[in-house]
């Protein structure tokens, strides 16, 4: 079974998945995580993925990032750089300071030292951790670690950004601020974003398009465009309306499966 | 018997050590042919130990884990002097000779050794002293650090053949069976050490007993020495059988029978005598002092040849001089 959704304007495509299937394990203990997912993300498009716990969202991002190989189907990417992926866990390097962590992708791109230092400071300011550059990951709170991971992913400067619940550990206010920052960066850099979240309002706040995955195996069961003009506010009634719609569908889906 | 050595009644255990080595032929043959067992009789349990090198045997004697052992002159002197004359007594000789300076074929005179490298088994041991003293007599200087006219390289015997073949050394002053091996590797005998000694005799193996055991069980020691005399008798009268016995006995211990050809080759250079040739040990020590490798040490009281002479007398052989 194949569920398909295409980018609104049939122009070029930043990310193209067609019939992507992923099976973990072998034999009787095999888990079908994704089943025939087809999805195109247009350049500059902001796509949010929502779905129940364990439905295959992280799996999908891993496949797109090239960290794992699909069991079936094809994944195409524009350009030749891999997309930047912000993992569901912070995945910081414990042997480096906060600055060191954010600097790694810059070092790998061989930026000169002065420029690196400047970029790191700027990114840490973006995530409101300017004072914490010299701390080590184990000295940070959960939310702080997540923000460092965000800064590190942004440092990659890739045209495609994959984000796996990037703001899950943040309080509502900090999250609001970072929504604004992310939106600014997205529009400035013309990024294509594939964004996983459990917060449906967050999806409605940020997305051009929201895609709903079914519970195991993950299939696209719903896709809706969010046509609210930007800048949006997370507590605006339009956002709430979209959120309510998606929530309702999600509820049906989880209800069908969850019990 | 145990290490307390109490002279009480009951069976006595004699713990006897030796090396699976051609210079220990009387011990090897005596064990293999059951000569010791026969002489010691049923009242004594023979507990045999074999060693690869002298230090372990001396450590074992010192710590009371061993009562008697066949051993070379060097560890004998060390054991005696380090224990301030307490730990051990020589009760019999076993073998003499079997040492030579083997050199590369081109070298035919001492003078040609100038600037060459000569290996010895160990700094300050009998052979090391012998070569230095001999060179000194020939007017060639050596130093402890390996300098001088002739460079002395103390190294394990196991290494000598490898280094001789590879040309890293030009000769070696070593005991059998290394002499034979070096000869087979193309070496020539420059000096047979026997030629340097009166009667061509100098000790290469003797039999020592721990003082404690000697005091506690003189009767057992007496029987042991009788066994040694009988073993030497066997070795000297039935050389072929002895050689074969040595080959197989060594094979059991080391994992591979010793090449019979090698034994036969080495045989004539060795003499299996019961006389520990005490004079050679003393002279050797004097030489060591001369070449400044040791402090003068007294060997008074090292030899206790009473039992040997009794045994020799009983066997109708000439007695030896108790120094």
């Amino acid at each position, binding site marked *: 079974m194949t569920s*398909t959704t*295409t*980018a609104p304007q*049939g*122009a*070029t*495509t930043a990310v*193209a998945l*067609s019939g992507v299937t992923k099976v973990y394990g*072998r034999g009787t203990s095999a888990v079908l995580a994704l089943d025939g997912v*087809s999805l*195109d993300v247009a350049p500059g498009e902001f796509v949010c993925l929502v779905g129940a716990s364990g439905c295959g969202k992280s799996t999908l991002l891993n496949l797109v990032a*090239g*960290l*794992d*190989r*699909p*069991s079936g189907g*094809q*994944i*195409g*990417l*524009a*350009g*030749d750089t891999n997309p930047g992926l912000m993992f569901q866990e912070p995945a910081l390097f414990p042997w480096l300071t906060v600055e060191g962590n954010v600097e790694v992708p810059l070092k790998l791109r061989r930026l000169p030292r002065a420029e690196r230092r400047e970029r790191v400071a700027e990114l840490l300011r973006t995530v409101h951790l300017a004072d914490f550059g010299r701390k080590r990951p*184990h000295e940070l709170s959960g939310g702080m670690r997540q923000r460092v991971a965000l800064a590190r992913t942004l440092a990659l400067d890739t045209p495609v950004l994959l984000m796996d619940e990037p703001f899950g550990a943040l309080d509502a206010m900090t999250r609001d601020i970072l929504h604004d920052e992310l939106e600014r960066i997205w529009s400035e850099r013309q990024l294509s974003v594939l964004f996983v979240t459990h917060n449906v309002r967050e999806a409605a706040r940020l997305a051009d398009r929201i895609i709903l995955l079914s519970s195991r195996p993950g299939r696209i069961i719903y896709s809706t465009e969010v046509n609210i003009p930007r800048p949006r506010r997370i507590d605006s009634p339009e956002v709430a309306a979209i959120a309510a719609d998606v929530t309702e569908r999600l509820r049906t889906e989880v209800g069908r499966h969850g019990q | 018997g145990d*290490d307390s050595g109490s002279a009480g009644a009951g069976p006595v255990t004699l*713990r006897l050590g030796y090396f*699976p080595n051609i210079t220990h032929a009387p011990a090897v043959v005596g*064990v293999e042919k059951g000569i010791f067992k026969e002489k010691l009789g049923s009242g004594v349990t023979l507990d*045999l*130990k*074999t*060693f*690869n*090198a002298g*230090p*372990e045997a001396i*450590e*074992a004697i*010192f*710590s*009371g*884990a061993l009562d008697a052992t066949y051993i070379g002159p060097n560890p004998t002197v060390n054991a005696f002097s380090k224990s301030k004359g307490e730990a051990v007594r020589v009760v019999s000789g076993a073998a003499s000779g079997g040492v030579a300076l083997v050199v590369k074929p081109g070298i035919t005179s001492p003078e040609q050794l100038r600037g060459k490298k000569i290996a010895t088994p160990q700094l300050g041991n009998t052979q090391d002293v012998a070569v230095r003293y001999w060179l000194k007599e020939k007017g060639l200087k050596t130093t402890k650090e390996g300098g001088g006219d002739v460079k002395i390289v103390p190294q394990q*015997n*196991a290494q000598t*053949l*490898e280094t001789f*073949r*590879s040309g890293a050394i030009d000769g070696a002053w070593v005991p059998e*069976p290394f002499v034979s*091996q070096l000869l087979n*590797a193309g070496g020539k005998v420059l000096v047979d050490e026997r030629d340097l000694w009166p009667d061509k005799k100098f000790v290469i193996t003797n039999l020592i007993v721990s003082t404690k055991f000697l005091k506690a069980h003189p009767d057992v020691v007496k029987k042991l020495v009788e066994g040694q005399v009988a073993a030497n008798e066997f070795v000297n009268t039935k050389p072929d059988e002895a050689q074969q016995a040595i080959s197989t*006995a060594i094979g*059991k*211990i*080391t*994992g*591979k029978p*010793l090449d019979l050809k090698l034994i036969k080759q080495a045989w004539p250079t060795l003499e299996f005598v019961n006389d520990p040739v005490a004079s050679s040990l003393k002279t050797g020590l004097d030489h060591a002092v001369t070449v400044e490798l040791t402090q003068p040490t007294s060997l008074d009281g090292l030899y206790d040849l009473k039992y040997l002479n009794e045994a020799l007398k009983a066997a109708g052989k000439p007695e030896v001089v108790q120094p």
Partner: protein
Amino acid sequence: MASDTLTSSARTDAEISGLDALEIAGRDKEISRGARIWAATWPKLAALTIAILAWQLVVWSGWKPPYSLPGPMEVGRELISQARGPQLWDGLVTTLRRAAVGYVFSAAVGLLLGLAVARSKVLRAAIGSMITALQTMPSIAWFPLAILLFELSEKAIFFVVVLGAAPSIANGVISGVDYVPPLLLRAGRNLGARGLNLYRYVIAPAALPAIVAGLKQGWAFSWRSLMAGELLVVGISQTSLGAQLTYSRDLSDAPWLLSTMIVILVVGLVVDAAFGAADKAIRRRWGVLDQAGN
């Protein structure tokens, strides 16, 4: 669908398998059992062939005389003749028995010592550094003490073996315990694991990879100590691998020495296979298998 406008080609299997083996996790999904065994075997065979060939070439080149460096043929013949006789097998059995007993004992001592030192601040300050220092002490230095304590018995051999291997195993334990993730420790404590239970349920399993690494190093130490220690007590009719190694060298019997070395290598390979299997089982459980080329 507009995927024909993509500048990069689709990520096909072929493309991905061209990448570094390291880069892809979980590759050998569909590979058959036979193919897997072959994949594990051919490099070994190739390495062996290359090694023997190189050896043979050096021998043929006449760089060193054959009595100094015998060729593979000669050593092979020697090995076969050894294998036909009882001495090699007797020696091997004796040595393996000693190795097993000594190692088990060393492992017990090393694990207990390691746990004790890792657990107690005072003990660590007192003897922590001593452990590494002991590890560096050559076996022969212990011979006099071994004889002093145990006379010329097998126990003397075990003493030397344990002194060689236990510190290394203890060090493995200590380093493993030191690097247990603090979060897991805290979780364990909160779940009610205190004292010994904390060790049993959290620290020991979390340190297992380092402990296995230490046990592996400990095996090498115990084996080497055993090879030396076996010379302490050579029975008059009982040979051992250690004795064969030393005597073959003493007699400058190059083919015999080399064939004994081959036997030692084979034992080492078998033991490594056992450790490898244990390690693989742990890695599979932990989910770190197959990430870096194996």
